[in-house]
């Protein structure tokens, strides 16, 4: 026993280890380096759509920050700088595929067509979340770090049992890789060959904690071999590289070859949330340095070089961005205050009368308060 390897047909580690360098297709000046292993199988409209999603995302993101400043949102977690990673990743999914996001996935939501106004209600506190996950196969934002990785894995296991060609994608951060749940999720996914892609946005920070406090690994992508799945990494500020790498992983999973892990290298340009103060833990220089690789500017140069971006298109995209941002703002501004009695409404499918006394109490409190006011 001792001699023989511990498993029947172990995979070859070399098929699972990441390449020495992250996949990178677009230079900062917008020049595209073709890579046969990572073809960009997109037509002109799709290439423009990527741009559209990134611009809309950034615009809605900025609007959300404003809304928080205006006191309309309690807090907000900006994805500024991560547009390419999120849009490039989500764009690789098919309509029926599912996204299991953390709380910073505005770009993935926009790509999926989720109503950003409904999505952001949870930051206003109208309700704990308010979009329908089944409308665009976009799960609820998950705030407990890394927990959604297990939901994505279970969902994928269910689809596989049903021979349903669905792939799920779990978004989480560099910090999340330290938690037990993503570890267990990747363990299950590997063992059950679940069609799930673990998409890590390595934005270098977990609130104030830098990556080297999360792991001593050469790269996050080197974690994959420990679960028997391939680990890929890409320049997460390069939307085409991110798309191509994710596309490959997604179709591989769909074809039954099992899960994959992707590390998209990017940077959190904004504070962790609007409540955070980055000056306490990182330098302006670092932020400026990171700003130089702005994912949208780079992609705009590419589209322009390719002659895919004329003023009409720019105007059109600008208009769509403005429209979506306005729609979101109006949704938030016009959000009803909510009915306190709803506290009891969704807890159970059948509350078997358990809430009666407490409902009566709250109703009485509301009535009394009403009298005072009125």
């Amino acid at each position, binding site marked *: 026993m001792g001699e023989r390897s511990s498993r029947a047909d172990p995979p070859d580690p070399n098929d699972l280890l990441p390449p020495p360098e992250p996949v990178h297709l677009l230079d900062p000046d917008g020049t595209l380096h073709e890579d046969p292993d990572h073809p960009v199988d997109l037509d002109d409209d799709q290439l423009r759509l990527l741009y559209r999603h990134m611009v809309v995302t950034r615009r809605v993101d900025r609007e959300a920050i404003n809304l928080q400043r205006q006191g309309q949102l309690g807090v907000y977690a900006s994805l500024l700088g991560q547009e390419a990673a999120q849009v490039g990743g989500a764009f690789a999914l098919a309509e029926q595929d599912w996204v299991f996001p953390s709380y910073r996935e505005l770009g993935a939501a926009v790509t999926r067509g989720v109503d950003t106004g409904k999505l952001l209600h949870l930051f206003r506190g109208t309700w*704990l979340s308010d979009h329908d996950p089944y409308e665009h196969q976009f799960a609820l934002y998950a705030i407990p770090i890394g927990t959604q990785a*297990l939901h994505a894995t*279970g*969902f994928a*296991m269910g689809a596989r049992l*049903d021979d349903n060609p669905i792939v799920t994608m779990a978004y989480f951060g560099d910090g999340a890789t330290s938690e037990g*749940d993503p570890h*267990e999720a990747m363990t299950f996914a590997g063992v059950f060959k679940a069609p799930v892609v673990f998409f890590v946005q390595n934005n270098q920070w977990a609130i104030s904690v830098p990556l080297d406090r999360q792991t001593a690994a050469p790269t996050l992508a080197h974690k994959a071999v420990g679960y028997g799945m391939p680990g890929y990494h890409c320049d997460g500020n390069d939307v085409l590289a991110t798309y191509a790498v994710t596309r490959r992983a997604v179709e591989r999973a769909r074809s039954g070859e099992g899960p994959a892990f992707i590390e998209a290298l990017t940077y959190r340009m904004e504070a962790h949330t609007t409540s955070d103060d980055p000056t306490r833990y990182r330098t302006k220089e670092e932020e400026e340095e990171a700003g130089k690789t702005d994912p949208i500017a780079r992609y705009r140069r590419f589209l322009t070089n390719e002659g895919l971006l004329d003023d009409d298109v720019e105007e059109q995209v600008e208009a769509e961005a403005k429209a979506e941002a306005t729609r979101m703002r109006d949704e938030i501004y016009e959000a009803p205050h909510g009915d306190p009695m709803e506290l009891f*409404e969704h807890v*159970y499918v059948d509350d078997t009368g358990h809430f009666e006394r407490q409902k009566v109490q709250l109703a009485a409190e509301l009535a009394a308060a009403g009298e005072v006011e009125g």
Partner: protein
Amino acid sequence: MSTTTLAQAINRGLHDAMGADDRVLMFGEDVGALGGVFRVTDRLQEAYGSDRVYDTPLAESGILGTAIGLAMYGMRPVCEMQFDGFAYPAFEQFTSHLAKMRNRSRGRVTLPVTVRIPFGGGIGAVEHHSESPETYWAHTAGLKVVSPATVADGYAMTRAAIAADDPIVVLEPKRRYWMKDDVDLPVTTEPLHKAVVRRPGDDVTVVAYGPMVRTAMEAAAAGEDEGWSLEVIDLRSLSPIDTDTLVASVQKTGRMIVVHEAAQTLGIGSEIAARVQQEAFYHLEAPILRATGFDTPYPPAMLESFFLPDVDRILDRVEESLSY
């Protein structure tokens, strides 16, 4: 009538539930080929195949977290935590997701997940295999918690829990797995969240659940010799608690003892006492008393009999109650 053990009744309940709905899955540690360490899942894999009955990696958060994902997809997962003391690694998935997802989603996401957990002591086990953690789940809004105490309920409550659309923790009284009764299966019993009077009486109400129901019945029998007429209530549902049945009983007896193995402080008995002293204030002739485990960790096997409530401890409380 055929003689069946509690373990067999639950096994049959799982079997029939899987036969009735092919979206029902059963998984956990060692539930497949082995049939579970208590054989409660015996032969299920044979019957329904390893796609629907499967062993998982050794990771409880993984078991519950994937159950949630499977439920979101449309399955009806039944998962097992091998022992009471080993459900804790899954606690975050229990409290932050299983309990809250439906409310969070404004009713859009429903999680018909059943979590089976053998619980309680009295089997001479090593540490972590004899705990009574019901408070952790019963205090968590969004979960439901039940515990069968009879062979018939072993079958019927298992079926009812799996059929229900809310997440339900089923606490199986492991020390009663081998308890026999004559019941023809399938059988249906009272609604899942109703308490049941197992033995009517006039002097003192004794409330118990899971493994302690049988002990309470024995105490009631022994109490007869003392001339005490005890009414024994099988709580069955620990969340929600069927307060009305408890209040109705105490309105008759004026006295109540709550029995459980769990530590006394913040055990189910505390909530029952708080509710009943409020709703039956003028009917109480004595304070509600508790015959429970101590506020200590569960003891080693050779000392567990001194920790666990038994007939004597229950009757001591009855006597104390009657002394008011």
